[in-house]
Each structure stands twice: as structure tokens, then as C-alpha cells.
């Protein structure tokens, strides 16, 4: 069941706004939807992609023209995206921040998805992609600062960088 927005997700949106996001490419996800809708409500241009590797290509192309472009997706889509992330974004030194909601942890309602999602940080680390993770122990101001700083670092160091958001954790809802 999709969760409504909450102070932490709002803070992540603020972080992208602080960075100056101009366009975001998103892949359908009910748990990214609050973030997607908030960015749309702020007038940020959006592009709907049908697969995550496609999102990497589009956002990477935008970034190569100088547009501040990010990807919003769900972490199980990294299985689709790994080749594009490594052989395009990383290899061509394209700075693309990626904000992804996590699945398979505390608060999960799907008995299967942890089989992939729990391993996403290790998979990304194995291919040299930096990951920062935000959860209920992190106050909203840290979500905001981390998302902004991660996007800045991705562009400055010309590489894809991922911020994982643990939006399903029950404590996050309790805090909202």
C-alpha cells in the first residue's frame, strides 16, 4: 500500500530543490509516488521511463547537456539498471544523482522482494557506485542535507551516486 508523504520524504524533496533540480526521470513506483508528485507540484520537469536502464540513459543524456537531472526509482530496479549505470554513466563520467526508495526491510508487505532488494547496497558497492542510506533514525534535516549533498557530489565527481530512502520503515510513519 502506498504511503502518503511525510516530513522525511518532504525533506528529501527539499534537498533536491536545494540542489536546483531541473528535470527528473522516474520509473513507476507507488512508494516513490509521494516524492514524484511533490516534485511535479513544484514544477520540476519530469520524464516517465518504463525501465530503469532507460531512465539512466535519459537522465545521463540530459546531464551531458548541463541540465541538473536526477532519477527517482525503486531499489529493485537496480537489477535492470546495472549495465547502463556502469557501462554508460560511470564509464562516461556522467554525474547523475539517483534517489531510490528501498523495499524488503522492516515494514515490508511483499514476501518476495527482499530477495533482491536487501542486496542492493552490496550490489552497488560491488560495481563501485557510492550509496548513502537514510532511514527513520535520521532526522528530516539530515535527509534534506544528504540528498542535496549527494546530488552535488554526483555532478562534481561526474558519476552516478545513489541515495536510498527507507520509506517503508514503520517508525517513519509513526514519526509523521
Amino acid at each position, binding site marked *: 500500500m502506498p504511503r502518503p508523504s511525510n516530513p522525511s520524504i518532504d525533506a528529501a524533496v527539499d534537498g533536491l530543490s536545494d540542489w536546483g533540480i531541473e*528535470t527528473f*526521470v522516474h520509473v513507476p513506483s507507488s512508494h516513490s509516488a509521494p516524492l514524484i508528485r511533490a516534485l511535479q507540484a513544484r514544477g520540476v520537469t519530469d*520524464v*516517465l*521511463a*518504463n*525501465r530503469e*536502464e*532507460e*531512465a*539512466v*540513459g*535519459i*537522465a*545521463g*543524456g*540530459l*546531464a*551531458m*547537456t*548541463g*541540465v541538473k*537531472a536526477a532519477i527517482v526509482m525503486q531499489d529493485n530496479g537496480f537489477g535492470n539498471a546495472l*549495465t*547502463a549505470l556502469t*557501462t*554508460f554513466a560511470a*564509464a*562516461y*563520467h*556522467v554525474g547523475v544523482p539517483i534517489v531510490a526508495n528501498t523495499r524488503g526491510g522492516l515494514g515490508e508487505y511483499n514476501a518476495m522482494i527482499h530477495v533482491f532488494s536487501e542486496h542492493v547496497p552490496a550490489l552497488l558497492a560491488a560495481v563501485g557506485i557510492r550509496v548513502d542510506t537514510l532511514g527513520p533514525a535520521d532526522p528530516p534535516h539530515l535527509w534534506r542535507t544528504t540528498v542535496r549533498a549527494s546530488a552535488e557530489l554526483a555532478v562534481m565527481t561526474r558519476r552516478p551516486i545513489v541515495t536510498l530512502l527507507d520509506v517503508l520503515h514503520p517508525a517513519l510513519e509513526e514519526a509523521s
Partner: protein
Amino acid sequence: MKRIEALAAIDEVFVGDPLVITCGASAREMASIARRNTHLPLLDSMGLAGPVGLGIALGTDRPVGVIEGDGAVLMGLQMLATIKAQSPPNLTLIILDNHQHASADLMNSQAADGVSLAGASRGLGLLTIEVDDVDGLAAAARDARDSDQVTVIVADIEPGNTAGIPFLLADPAVLGDSFRRSFAEPSS
């Protein structure tokens, strides 16, 4: 029409414009014709030239060309839907259709089994032009480049690869940097 003849015609039309080139023999043969800062050859990432070109087209007002193969488009067929949904007027997608994965041991692609990429493109609502010779390709590419409508050109080319073309052993970071810098240069 051989692929290398098609590539030369496309290069001439899009000289000075951003041009994204799919991986394998297409990238190698284009590099043997011309190496330009405005060229972005993908050294891998099969099926990604279309999405990358779409992103570039959304980020610039310049005409943008993308060269895909039939096999690469079939690997990322959803690109056609996304290109239609966005419809950047400055984008031209050229599919060189030899009905085979020429860079994968010349194995047939599904285009050899009656799959029509032009039909798929038209079915998704994209302006789609089919050509089968160099003059037709050059004319269609020029019209598409100068038009204000996203266009897909499906060019029927001969199977196989040009002999004697060396591997493209460029550093992708250098290719990417050169391409990025080309946006600071005046367009033709």
C-alpha cells in the same frame, strides 16, 4: 546500401550536431569515417543510444541524431514509446536495419522473422520514414533534421560488417568529456 555508406550519409547531414551512435560495428565504422566531438559513440550499453539521445534532445535546442540498429532497438523497444511520449521536435532516430545482430556473430535478429520496427514505430504514433538507399536516407535525414517533429527513419541496409575496421579503443571518459564540451561550441 552498406552500413558504412549509411553512416557516411548520416554524418554528413548531422555534421556539427550531437549524434549518438550505438555500440559495436556501428560505432567502429563511424569512427573510421569521422571522429568528432559532437559524436557520442557508445562502446557498450546496447539499446541505450535512443534513451541517451532522447535525454540530449530534451536538454538542448540543437538538432540531435541517434543511430540505432534493429537489434539494439529490440533490446530496448520501450524507447520508442518514451520517445513518442516526449516527442522532442529536434530528435531524429535512425534505425539501421540489417535484420541481424551483426556485432554478435551475425546472428539473425527478430527483424528477420517478420518483426517490423517501422510498423511498431508507426503503431506508437511516431512519424516513420522507410528508406532503402543512400540517397533516400540522406534526403530523409535532412528533412527530419530540419523539421520540427520527432522522426524515426528505418533504413534497410545490407547484412554484415565492413572488413578491416579496427576496434574503437577510446577512453569513454574522454569521449564523454569531448561530447560535453561540444555544447560550448557554436552549432553549425
